[in-house]
């Protein structure tokens, strides 16, 4: 059986299952599993030996999820989630957003803008987009909803701004890209900084314009007195201290980003005790919600891993990249075609999976075309980040859905994200047309 055909059939069946409301984790895992049996048991040009495919696939669905989860680099996700839940249940985020609301009352969409900046700051400490979305989801979304922000805007802004996590340094994806290309990790990380900030600024601009046109999206308070403003600051010291603890800890080199997640969570508990807010009910809720949300997020990610295992064997990712790279057109057209391939792959795969499967094909060609690999790295990371918020498999959107529960439907989040997606494409075009945005900082380093 032709593996490429099999791969595309698998993608089709996956879509169908998701449409008929099969849980996403189940859809991904089932299609990945059956696909693996066929891809391994029935290789191209040979007779079917499904027993062999069964043997390989059945073992894979045990050892791959287990080993994927039992990995130190993922420890940050539940711990950052916990920091978010603790800060939420003990009212630190409420204090923070009350202050933001008082001070940003004149700014259309003030809280959403504060959330973009919060995400950007969080991105600057965490190396991962998923961790950024997980932590900021609980910190920000309930607060915006409390102030009657439009559900799509309140969730979309966090799902999208969460993607800054891998662009603004540090970034796990960037480091892996660096290993693949033997580029300077320092320069690569630096190259992502300005594009990350640019993405955030473009988001902010879009929020302001939309909130001005339609004030209902982001209701603003009327005439906040200076007294109220100063008073609102009183409660903010804990959330500020928490940010300083986490960011300071990483920048001063006292802790690694993973350790920072633990220190941040411990700090949140400590602050709850210090401010005499610690209560048994909220404490229990914080812990239980942390683990149930970790489980629901990881269920999807594990499903995605099994599915990507199948896609890897079919060679679909390499096939599509090859298709774009073999075009007989000017380099810029090839680059745009390749971008399209990344967007398509991003709809149903996770960023790391896409990167590992496409880089061996893509990097040599990009080099031959005479493009700067640092610049291309930034563009590729941005493309992979876009994949985190595109349906049907948008991991950041799923994380957010997990964090906020039943109050907002998945479709509403995807719809809310759409505006940010359009901005991302704009940012991407800017990055492609003006390479200096990415390159002037790392080049200035010389």
């Amino acid at each position, binding site marked *: 059986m032709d593996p490429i055909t099999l791969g595309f059939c698998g993608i089709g069946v996956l879509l169908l299952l998701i449409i008929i409301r099969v849980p996403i984790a189940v859809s991904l895992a089932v299609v990945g599993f059956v696909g*693996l049996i066929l891809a*391994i048991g029935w290789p191209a040009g040979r007779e079917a030996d499904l027993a062999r495919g069964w043997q*390989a696939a059945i073992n894979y669905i045990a050892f791959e999820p287990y*080993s994927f989860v039992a990995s130190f680099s993922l420890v940050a996700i539940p711990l950052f989630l916990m920091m978010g839940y603790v800060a939420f249940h003990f009212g630190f985020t409420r204090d923070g957003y009350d202050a933001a609301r008082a001070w940003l009352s004149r700014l259309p969409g003030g809280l959403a803008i504060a959330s973009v900046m919060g995400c950007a700051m969080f991105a600057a400490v965490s190396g991962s987009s998923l961790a950024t979305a997980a932590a900021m989801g609980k910190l920000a979304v309930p607060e915006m909803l409390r102030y009657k922000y439009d559900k799509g805007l309140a969730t979309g802004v966090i799902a999208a701004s969460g993607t800054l996590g891998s662009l603004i340094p540090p970034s796990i994806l960037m480091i892996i890209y660096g290993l693949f290309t033997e580029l300077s990790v320092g320069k690569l990380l630096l190259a992502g900084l300005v594009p990350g900030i640019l993405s955030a600024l473009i988001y902010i601009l879009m929020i302001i314009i939309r909130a001005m046109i339609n004030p209902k999206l982001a209701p603003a308070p009327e005439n906040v007195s200076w007294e109220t403003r100063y008073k609102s600051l009183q409660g903010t010291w804990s959330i500020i201290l928490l940010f300083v603890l986490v960011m300071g800890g990483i*920048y001063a*080199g*006292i802790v690694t980003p993973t350790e920072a997640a633990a220190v941040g969570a411990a700090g949140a508990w400590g602050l709850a005790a210090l401010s005499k807010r610690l209560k048994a009910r909220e404490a229990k809720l914080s812990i239980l919600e942390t683990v149930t949300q970790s489980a629901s997020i990881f269920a999807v990610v594990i499903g995605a891993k099994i599915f990507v*295992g199948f896609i890897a064997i079919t060679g679909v990712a390499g096939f599509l990249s090859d298709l774009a790279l073999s075009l007989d057109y000017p380099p810029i057209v090839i680059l745009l075609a390749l971008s399209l391939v990344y967007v398509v792959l991003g709809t149903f795969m996770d960023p790391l999976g896409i990167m590992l499967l496409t880089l061996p094909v893509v990097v040599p060609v990009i080099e031959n075309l005479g493009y700067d690999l640092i610049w291309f790295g930034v563009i590729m990371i941005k493309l992979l980040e876009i994949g985190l918020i595109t349906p049907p498999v948008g991991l950041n959107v799923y994380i957010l859905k997990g964090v906020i529960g039943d109050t907002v439907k998945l479709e509403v989040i995807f719809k809310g994200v759409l505006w940010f997606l359009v901005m991302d494409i704009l940012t991407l075009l800017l990055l492609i047309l003006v390479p200096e945005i990415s390159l002037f900082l790392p080049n200035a380093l010389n």
Partner: protein
Amino acid sequence: ANAYAEYHLRYSELGPPRGARAESLKWWASEIEKRTNGEVKIEFFWSQALSKGKETLRAVSTGLADAGTIMGPYNPAEMPVWNYGNLPFVAGDIWVTLRTWQDLQTTMPELSDEMKKNGIHLLANFTTGPSEIVSNFEIKSSADLDGKKIRATAGFIPLMKNLGAIPVNLGHSEIYQAMDRGTVDGGATYMFATRSYKFYEVADYVLEVNMGQILGYGAGINLKQWNEMPDNIKKVMTEVSEEFVEHYSKALIEDNASARAELLKGIDGKVMKINTLDEAERAKWKAAADELVVEWKERTEAKGIDSQKVIDQYNETFAKYQKELEEKGYPWNR
């Protein structure tokens, strides 16, 4: 005949398609393809895109991958004998040690048994080359390590602790950032990696210790797949894998040497100072790792394996190639 190779092998590899091992593996695959007239074709999945490094043993033994880079260190209980090679200060020269382990795959039943038991046929043994220390402070003796935070994994953790340092367990890809931020003051790594991972951007010193190498890993193939293949193909694959030892040793030694020269000269204006541990001091370091050999012996005995016999055969084979090296030099220079 059809358009597809008779044996299309999926190979699950640990690292990216760069560096000495990757280049040697590509050579290995293309030689096999050439000498079997295209009957065998090897498709690489780099950087654990198909299976985690930790699980490649299982991925290959169950047929998810047909072949792959099998990691002994993740399976210490399943492959005790092979893991002897990873103990600090057991390895010596790259070619001598690699040649020794490649030989033992066929001559030491304890070793080939544990491969077979795990459903693997080992084609080619690998090595990381000598472990050295990069740091942002100068190390001349173990006294300089006192109270310093050093990245280390596996057997190097107790070694560092015994020498007075504070071991910090980090993945190799985390060293750069941890050195940059000062989370660690130094880290166990390799000369070639100091260049390819750009550690010269964040560290000033390299200490050549040759504290050991990771040798308990290599290219394995699914045993059932191996047994199904006709003799002529097996012969070619064995032959190329034997040549791989020479090819890979040469590439790694040259990579280390050119990295060393470049680091001394400076890359992008960043010069590193390289110190070499003298023999007396090195003996002291070696003694600090002695407990690990004792522990390894106990665990291996518990599996019903004569550990002294393994060590003796290893030493004997090692001595043979060490002598050959001293008398004739490296094979590619003869």
